[in-house]
């Protein structure tokens, strides 16, 4: 399928919508503990934003814009997801025990810090990279 070069409307809209989707995915990700969302849906949304770039432009553009090797990103995600549960063992707690605390940050007010978010970050990274690995591999294949 050849891309049309004069997709001006699509490309312009993509530039705007990309950041909106990205922001939304961050919102889903960070709000996961309190509102619907979380690492999985957040990851899918981020992946969707990147796929949008592929659709509007092409694979090459995506690679130039986001110069990340998603296979390496997958490893990072796996390290977070698998490594996090072990961290609690370093402190003499049970495997996979989370900690949380509340701190006051001047601008944001009372904020909770939770180690579960780090685990969720692993899930997020895995979902993003796996989705993109699949799409890119199949898309590049002839």
């Amino acid at each position, binding site marked *: 399928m050849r891309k049309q070069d004069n997709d001006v409307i699509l490309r312009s809209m993509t530039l705007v919508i990309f950041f909106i989707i990205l922001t939304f995915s961050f919102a*889903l990700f960070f*709000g*996961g*503990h*309190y*509102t*619907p*969302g*979380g*690492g*999985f*849906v957040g990851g*899918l*949304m981020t*992946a*969707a934003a990147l*796929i949008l770039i592929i659709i509007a432009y092409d694979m090459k553009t995506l690679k130039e814009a986001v110069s990340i090797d998603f*296979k390496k990103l*997958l490893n990072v*995600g*796996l390290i977070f*997801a*698998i490594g996090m*549960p072990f961290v609690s063992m370093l402190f003499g707690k049970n495997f*996979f025990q*989370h900690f*949380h605390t509340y701190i006051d940050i001047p601008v944001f007010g009372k904020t*909770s810090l*939770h180690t*579960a978010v780090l*685990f*969720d970050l*692993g*899930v997020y990274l*895995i*979902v993003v*990279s*796996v*989705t993109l*690995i*699949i*799409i890119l*591999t*199949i*898309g*590049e*294949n002839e």
Partner: protein
Amino acid sequence: MTFLHIAIFIPIIWAIIVKSLERFIHRLHIGWYVLPVPVFLFIYFLTYIPIIKGGDVHYSAMHLMHHFMMDFNLYIDGLSLLFALLITGIGSLVVLYSIGYLSQKEQLSHFYIYLLMFMTAMLGVVLSDNLLMLYLFWELTSISSFLLISFWNNRARSLYGAHKSMIITVFGGVMMLGGFIIIGNIAGTFNIHEIIPQFELIQSTPSIWIAIILILLGAFTKSAQFPFYIWLPDAMEAPTPVSAYLHSATMVKAGIYLVARLTPIFSFHDLWIYSVSFVGLITLVWASFNAVKQDDLKGVLAFSTVSQLGMIMSMLGLAAFGYNHGYNDAVFQVATVGAIFHLINHATFKGSLFMIVGIVDHETHTRSLKKLGGLMTLMPITTGIATVTALSMAGVPPFNGFLSKEMFINVMYMAMDAPNNGFNNFGIIFPILAIIGSIFTFIYSIMFVIKTFGGKLNKDDIPQVPHEAPWLMLTSPLILAVLVVFFGLFPNVLSETIIEPARNAMLHQSIEEHVHISMFHGVNKALISTIVIFIIGSILFYFLKSWIHLYDKHPEKLTLNYYYDRLLDFSSLIARKITQSYMTGFTRTYLVYLFSFLSGLTLFALVMKDIQYSLPKLGQITIVEITITLIIVISTTMIIIAKSRLFSIIMLSCVGYSMALFFVFFRAPDLALTQLAIETITTALFLICFYHLPKLSRHEEQRRFKIGNFIVAISVGLSVIAIGLLSLGNKTFDSISQYYIDNVYKLGAGENMVNVILVDFRGFDTLFETVVLAITGIGIYILVKLRLSKGGRRNEKTR
């Protein structure tokens, strides 16, 4: 643990040492390094004779797997000592003989490893007091015999013979294990000498006949009794020292040992008595009858071994008979002594005969009776040894075979005269069978000698003109032949040292009466019968040429080998047919099996189990739910009947989005979000793949197949519905979700309960689900990038 425990394992340990030192041994035959082991063990076991003679026994216990009642207890009484001496004594002679027989070009270290392994196994069988240990060593003899028969493993006949003997003896061995377990469970112990005092308990168990049949199957297969003897003639493909050692003197007597050993336990049962004695007699007659028609020297000796084993077995059966009825000490006394004495005699003359055959084969390169002849002048010493031992086998005085043959016929007459032999007027069958068997024994023994050594030498027929064998090969048969004469002239040397303790061990009581074997004790029925046997045998042998062709009338379809081969072919054929009939190679067939089984099992459970058919309490059904359900039903139907793939993909995503809608209405926002995103991505992937896929080919399927699928699909659907409804209506306990509701903020510091469960309460699941996802991604990447063509490897394409 005593030295006896180590002594059993000396051969196998020595085998390892010899193998590891093999590279340093070049000049000398390895057999010389092996020879000290059996000689040492023979001398070691000789030292037990004074103990045993005094009526004592040697018992040494060792806990091995005590919890499973499997202890490594060793027991030396007369019976086991007799066998241990046979094994080590004949073993020494066989090793000595094999040094001359096997050339340095053979894989000698393998040969001696197998042989020493066999020696350990056999010593273990006869010395073990524990039935489970006995079984262990028993199977080890089968394995080492298998290895020895297939020693020349580039010959098809060797492999066939090894395979056959393995199948038959292991079959018997496993059956025997079953019998042992039954006995062990009844008695509460596996130690033979603790089982024997409990024979009343065993006697009162009604189903003991099963154990008897199983154990006798083991003994009969090992000792080549009718109809399991068929492996032994084929085992003659082994090197001749192996035939001499395993298949005449030791291994085939393991079954005899077992029957003798268990006589005090089972002799109460008529099944034991009659099956042992009659199977023995039938074997005797059948095998001696068949031995006459053999052309191969080893074939003659193989059938002869079978028939002699049958003879010993029948005497053991009558010993059990006398032991049980006890009306007259004489029967079981003579039967027991006869069995034990013939056991020794057979080992001497048959071992020697096998070695003679080996020499003849070695010198002339043939074993065919049709080609051989006239070796007497060329090989005088061999001829002498062969004549002495063959006459002993035929039962001619003054050799030892005569003495035991006399006892045998005597026992048969006694059994006929016994008042309660259970046969009334049919008791005459015992001596008749015995005499017929002895006549044929006489014929083939004479035939063996005269056809090989008598007559004229046909130089054209024989591959190599023989000359006298080297002394290295002649020593062992000579020693055995000397023993044959010595035991014939002075049988009472054995009676006090070996036979009496063995008899007492077998009958498990000490009998004061001494055994006295004499060459001549008046003119009685047995002597007259023997003379008749000699006369008839000589006449029949003289006219052998005129009736030998009667054997050709015996059709091949009536031989046991024919049935054995057919059984093997048939069972593999049936197995293949069965497998081919259901392993079609089509995934859809296997899916039909799986699903039919699922629905069938559900139906079975619903019918058989007493289930409370209470339907669940239903909530309020809203118009929204009905609408979405309708959409799902319509789009599902569309998937099934769709003719184009694109249409079915779109209908599938329609179902997916409707599911997301359901999640929305059933208040599951996380699920709805995920479902929407995932559905979109899978649809996109389907569409990517769609481009490359061929068209749906539904119209090619057969109608019958469609109907079958329809039925299976409907039944699976109905069973899943039934399971769902029933499990919903029969909740046995409350949900644990209240805990999560209470603690989601307190412990998890979150408000989205789904997410807190996913990453905190049940984070383990999530951990591995993400790993699954990662593996999927990597898997797709590898599948697409690394395409191996049919021909060779192609590495990952890099762009």
